[in-house]
């Protein structure tokens, strides 16, 4: 036995649930991080796009001659130079357009020596348009005489979705209360701090390297290739540090192929970078929707049916936005136990902006409706039948093992615990009663408390044929670990989580784990950052790879120590005896011994983890996620009835997280998610007039600031998910989903007014209070 292990004993400890620092946080805080925006390649040109700035028009002619003459301009391209190139979910979009269908349409692009020359050249391009009458809402798009937007989609009808379960007529007949409302959910956008950017670079063999902020690098190649007319195999995606994404980069958008076409034709690297105004106008939005929701309930407080008819403004092109009904219907069929479901959704082309994916993915919109209906039932049942509001929720809350009409299998379901924990911690029932009584009294300031809950996939969502993630793990002679994972880091914190998981298994400090995950030529496949899936899927992959490595090391050590591998463990940088922690050999020494022998034994393992879930089919009946989770938010607000100002003072949240992995990352996700929902509920709104965005700046688009954040009390319910890593579930989207209806229900509690159309801006609230006063007197 070597000297350095004599009498050394290492206790078994666990990092799971501890607070782990995000490895890139210090560099970001002091401004050292190099984002894609900061990157400059040798010989690089600057690309700039001319956007139409009008919603619907024929392009009569484009004169690029003046722009081409400008010193420093290398190339000007228009749709003529890029025929037959298509992109988008239904291939209805193109890198450059020959007809204008919305304000953001890309008409021409320039590559020049500097940003300033590119901007000057854009101004020299002369385009002659013939404006056409436009369609500016889904309703108008369906009218018989509506202008046709996309040639291949008659009647302006885009995607549609349907799901039915049970006998609706019978369920309606058996209902004592039927609620029937239309909720209009508005346009908001992601507001990433880093604006959209791509740098394209072709080598002499025709292989494209694209520096991109994408959050799905592997399928991205498949989507980008047809927009360039090249083979997906000839694309290498490198992801420099991303300044936020939140769903905004889950698709290919025209600026990316435009950068590539400019690079291809000039033979030089080309960078396209949006300024803030371009970002507001030309990046995806959250899918707006008019949700006609009907819900039935018996006088005993048992839900009987839910019927939702969703009309969506598709905008001019189809990205991920109009596919959100896939998740909306899971909420309709899975948010509480509802036996009969009738869901339909239709997207309609218009000349407005088009939506992409956005944190919450349809569930933000649908929960705003369903959670308010739950509150309306609770109010009515409490008033007429004296039913306790929490009792009503509990009666309808699913339990572990239940299966929803769409066959979501709720293996570990703790909705009831979430409800009772949040209600008890916030004293919901008493406060709700007190504020209800005070609602009709005189007084300027009204207090309210509101409860909302929701369900979301928490173990990925199998919308592609594989929802898996590959991991390659190697250890060097100094016991440093490199993990090559398919999972991207876009700020969500998988870097900290993977080092934590690998440390847990291999007994090395988290700082000794390096993550490599920003190059598609190196990393194994992963479906991308979406659906709250990364900790669950990539975390499982990293754990399985680390266990393989551990087995290999312990097998080698067992031969030396003359014990079985099961009797050994890895702790604190040592191989130890499992029973008493007695050190056997230092880990780095062990690895060197394995390496430098006649038959070298080097630790290099790989794993591909595919979650235990079923593909989302056309009938939408499948267990599409390996886990589902619930969250309950209780918001406490003060409404100034003179000004209509809603101040959220406190939010109590209880969420099923399966198991806490990195507590610091988890708390940050809760706070960040809540900020998104808060803006959506109270102040953020993209204002469009005839397809033109009127507030494309942070001055006029009101993102919440630090003082708006309420006090947050977090309760993490650990349901111990059998499939998840250490029992963890995906967590990131629920905080954004649940907060807005909780605030709406609290505002109702304070004022007696329902707000079906967010945001609840002061003017809207003040007006509604005034109108109610008029009606009451």
């Amino acid at each position, binding site marked *: 036995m070597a000297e350095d292990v004599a009498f050394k004993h290492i206790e078994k400890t666990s990092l799971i649930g501890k607070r782990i620092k995000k490895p890139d946080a210090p560099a970001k805080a002091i401004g050292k991080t190099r984002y894609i925006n900061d990157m400059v390649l040798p010989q690089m040109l600057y690309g700039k796009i001319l956007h139409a700035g009008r919603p619907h028009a024929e392009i009569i002619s484009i004169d690029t001659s003046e722009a081409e003459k400008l010193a420093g301009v290398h190339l000007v391209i228009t749709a003529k130079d890029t025929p037959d190139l298509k992109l988008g979910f239904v291939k209805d979009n193109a890198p450059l357009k020959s007809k204008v269908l919305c304000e953001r349409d890309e008409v021409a692009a320039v590559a020049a020596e500097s940003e300033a020359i590119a901007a000057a050249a854009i101004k020299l391009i002369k385009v002659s348009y013939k404006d056409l009458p436009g369609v500016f809402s889904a309703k108008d798009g369906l009218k018989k005489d509506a202008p046709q937007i996309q040639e291949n989609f008659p009647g302006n009808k885009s995607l549609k979705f349907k799901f039915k379960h049970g006998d609706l007529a019978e369920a309606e007949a058996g209902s004592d209360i039927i609620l029937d409302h239309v909720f209009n959910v508005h346009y908001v956008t992601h507001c990433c701090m880093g604006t959209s950017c791509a740098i394209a670079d072709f080598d002499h063999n025709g292989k494209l390297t694209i520096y991109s902020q994408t959050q799905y690098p592997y399928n991205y190649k498949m989507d980008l290739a047809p927009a360039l007319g090249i083979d997906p195999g000839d694309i290498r995606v490198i992801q420099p540090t991303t300044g936020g994404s939140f769903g905004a980069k889950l698709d290919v958008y025209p600026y990316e192929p435009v950068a590539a076409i400019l690079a291809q034709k000039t033979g030089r690297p080309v960078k396209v970078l949006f300024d803030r105004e371009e970002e507001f106008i030309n990046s995806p939005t959250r899918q707006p929707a008019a949700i006609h929701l009907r819900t039935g309930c018996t006088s005993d407080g048992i839900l009987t049916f839910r019927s939702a008819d969703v009309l969506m403004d598709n905008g001019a092109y189809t990205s991920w936005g109009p596919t959100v009904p896939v998740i909306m219907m899971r909420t309709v069929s899975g948010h509480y136990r509802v036996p009969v479901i009738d869901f339909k959704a239709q997207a309609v082309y218009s000349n407005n902006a088009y939506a992409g994916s956005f944190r919450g993915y349809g569930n933000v919109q649908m929960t705003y409706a369903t959670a308010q209906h739950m509150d309306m039932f609770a109010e009515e049942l409490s008033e007429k039948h004296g039913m306790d509001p929490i009792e009503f929720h509990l009666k309808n809350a699913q339990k572990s093992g239940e299966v929803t009409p769409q066959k979501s299998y709720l293996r570990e379901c703790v909705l009831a615990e979430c409800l009772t924990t949040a209600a008890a911690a916030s004293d919901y029932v008493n406060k709700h009663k007190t504020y209800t009584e005070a609602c009709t009294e005189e007084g300027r300031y009204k207090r309210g408390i509101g409860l909302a809950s929701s369900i979301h996939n928490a173990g990925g969502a199998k919308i592609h044929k594989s929802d898996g993630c590959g991991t390659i793990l190697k250890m060097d002679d100094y016991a440093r670990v490199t993990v090559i994972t398919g999972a991207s880091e876009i700020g969500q914190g998988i870097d900290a989580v993977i080092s934590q998981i690998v440390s847990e298994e291999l007994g090395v400090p988290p700082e000794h784990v390096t993550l490599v995950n920003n190059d598609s030529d190196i990393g194994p496949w992963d479906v991308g950052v979406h659906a709250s899936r990364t900790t669950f899927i990539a975390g499982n992959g990293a754990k399985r790879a680390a266990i393989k490595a551990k087995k290999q090391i312990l097998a080698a050590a067992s031969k030396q120590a003359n014990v079985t591998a099961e009797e050994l463990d890895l702790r604190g940088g040592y191989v130890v005896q499992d029973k008493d922690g007695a050190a056997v050999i230092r880990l780095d020494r062990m690895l060197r011994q394995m390496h430098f022998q006649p038959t070298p034994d080097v630790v290099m393992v790989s794993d591909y983890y595919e979650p235990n879930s079923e593909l989302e089919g056309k009938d939408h009946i499948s267990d599409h996620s390996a886990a589902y989770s619930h969250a309950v938010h209780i918001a406490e607000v003060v409404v100034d009835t003179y000004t209509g100002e809603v101040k959220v003072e406190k939010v109590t949240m209880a969420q099923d997280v399966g198991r806490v992995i990195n507590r610091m990352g988890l708390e940050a996700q809760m706070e960040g998610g809540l900020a998104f929902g808060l803006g959506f509920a109270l102040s953020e709104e993209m204002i469009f007039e005839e397809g033109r965005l009127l507030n494309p700046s942070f001055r006029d688009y009101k993102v919440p600031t630090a003082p708006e954040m309420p006090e947050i009390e977090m309760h993490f319910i650990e349901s111990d998910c059998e499939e998840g890593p250490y029992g963890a579930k995906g967590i990131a989207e629920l905080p954004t989903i649940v907060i807005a209806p909780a605030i709406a229900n609290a505002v109702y509690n304070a004022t007696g007014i329902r707000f079906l159309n967010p945001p609840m801006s002061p*003017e809207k609230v003040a007006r509604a209070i005034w109108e109610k006063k008029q009606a009451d007197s």
Partner: protein
Amino acid sequence: MTAPKKDFDFARPKTIEQLYNLVQECQHEGRQFIFSAGGTDIMPNLKSEILSPDIVISLTGLRALNNIEKQGDHIIIGALTSLSELCSNNNIQKYLPALARAAHKVASPQIRNRATIGGNIMVENRCSYINQSPINRESHSPCFKIGGDVCHLVKSAKRGDDILCQARFVSDTAPLLLLQNSTVNIIGPAGSKEIKLADLYLNDGIESKSLMHGEIITHIKVEITENSLSHYEKLTIRNALDFPSLGVAALRRGNGDISVALTGLNTRPGVFHAKLENHETSDDMIVDICRKANDFTVTYQQDFFPRGYRKNMISVFIRRAINKILEGAKS
């Protein structure tokens, strides 16, 4: 708008003498110059090409203009004092707490660290049409403020009208300084002078200040009012970063008279008084001031909040500010 489009020179003179040598040089050579104190109002306007000078002359080298001093019945505030310093200064907190509150309501901590009191009282008037990017502005016809022939707020406006441009006044600190009978010390190529702060403000969105090109403010002299109480209330959608959609400063003097000053509405601040002897109750005084304020105010659709809402909020915020003072007087 990642960087200003047009290149400009930059200079930071260390003394007043150096400053005016430079100014003279610029005038002689026909170079357009602007002054910059903290620069937080200048930078966005450079980026959006509302300003396009040949040279930006920074005043931050004039160290002597960065101080706060009590002299008898007055507080003298150097024009280059940052808003952060103003918020935390002992004399300000003791004698002018409402000014500290108003300064604290400006923008964000980072901006307050750079922005100065001189800059804040000189802040350029704003309008939802002019304060946009060049691309956004180009999609409308050019307005009066950039040499055009229309106003997008008052469609019937014609060149030669009394108030040509309706860009509104947005300083958070000026209303309280006005109520405290402040004066400003000015120096320029022609020498120095002292004027009432109220006389600094003109009734036009373009020529909104009476300061001549080349003049700078060196100090602000603020009267300390014995036994007075004051307060500032600001209407914004958020608690940070926003300019006032409406701002109300209120002051109650030892003799019971109440004065109110408004910002965020017209092209210049409005000041209104109610004397105790003319009214039976404090509520009468509030009603009187609200009436005067509403008569004075012209609101346009040029803010996050709709016009009608802002108009309605004037009385609400005046009442809120005065009630806050009256509560303080009781305790």
